[in-house]
């Protein structure tokens, strides 16, 4: 597609629907975030035009199509966000090393096998771990080790089979990703082993 034609279509589309697009984004996002997202959407739209051009001949004259495109864009944005927070069931082994640096950097000077974590450090480590595993896994760990619930109970409540095996794997993944000494401290305080 000729670049002038692509620019013209994009400009005209934004001239006609920019306020509609922005108000749609504002329904789901805070003002500051909406501003960035609106600009990202403009870019997305510009790139989308050549492929949509022949596929959807009536697209540009209906506001319902605009809403549809914006909603899809917002959904994929939510997905991206969720993937970063890892609340949709990604395992710890899929997390980037960067996310674990927070833990490692806090304990760079560790030398001994057995370190003592202060309550504040202990909570910090737990928070980082919980922030990077799925909500369901967090709940499962808390039910098991914080509230001392039976595996059968957890299995029924969370609809998970083989709870013990699941927890074992989860612990192995955590151990693989954080410094050994920190893991030992956690194991003692949280897992009670």
């Amino acid at each position: 597609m000729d670049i002038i034609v692509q620019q013209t279509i994009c400009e005209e589309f934004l001239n006609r629907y920019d306020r509609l697009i922005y108000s749609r984004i504002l329904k789901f996002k805070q003002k500051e975030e909406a501003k960035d997202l609106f600009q990202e959407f403009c870019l997305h739209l510009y790139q989308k035009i050549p492929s949509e051009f022949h596929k959807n001949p009536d697209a540009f004259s209906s506001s319902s199509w605009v809403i549809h495109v914006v909603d899809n864009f917002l959904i994929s944005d939510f997905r991206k966000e969720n993937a970063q927070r890892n609340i949709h069931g990604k395992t710890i082994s899929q997390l980037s090393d960067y996310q674990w640096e927070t833990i490692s950097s806090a304990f760079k000077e560790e030398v001994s096998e057995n370190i003592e974590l202060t309550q504040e450090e202990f909570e910090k480590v737990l928070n980082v771990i919980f922030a990077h595993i799925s909500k369901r896994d967090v709940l499962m760990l808390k039910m098991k080790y914080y509230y001392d619930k039976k595996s059968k109970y957890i299995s029924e409540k969370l609809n998970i089979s083989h709870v013990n095996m699941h927890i074992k794997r989860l612990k192995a993944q955590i151990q693989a990703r954080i410094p050994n000494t920190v893991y030992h401290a956690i194991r003692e305080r949280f897992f009670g082993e």
Partner: protein
Amino acid sequence: MKNSTPSILFIGNHANKIRNDIPAETMNDYDLKSVEYQRGLAFKGESSKLILNGTPCVFNGEYELDNLSIALNFSRDHFLNDSVDTLIIGDPFELLFQASIFAILNENPNDVKVKKVLNSVNTISVILLYPAAMEFENLRKEISRVVYILKKHNVKTFLIENHFNQASAIDNILYYYESDNILSLEHQVSGLKQILGQTTSAC
């Protein structure tokens, strides 16, 4: 070959982008005018602007045919001189261009069928760029209203065909343009088709 100083009015994004691709020498002998629309930043609540010959004017309305044509009708004198031959260039897909045509011909976009009250402006001719979004069926309905109005006022109207480079076609048009003999343009410029202006008007 070339006639003296008529105005060339570039309306909208498409026309003004193409204008940048036309060699400056070709346009030296013309009085160049332009109408553009600058979108306000939605997230800053900024108002939009109509840029008439490079001068920005605040435009508080929505980007809609009615609002634009009223605003442009008020400022018509800034971009059009009825006593000078003017060649209007634009893409009928753009609302700004459609509104400009309604404004120039003093027509109401909501009631195109009403009998014309004022005399037609007979110093204007229109070159339609091939619409950027010709594939979009519903937009053809919008375009048909403009074409109807142009026909109603018997405005000489040309269309540059799709497979021709629009910039070089305009370059050729400006080279051969003679206001007294504009109908011969069709034979002189390849890819240019006269679509209106030979027969009697619609009303």
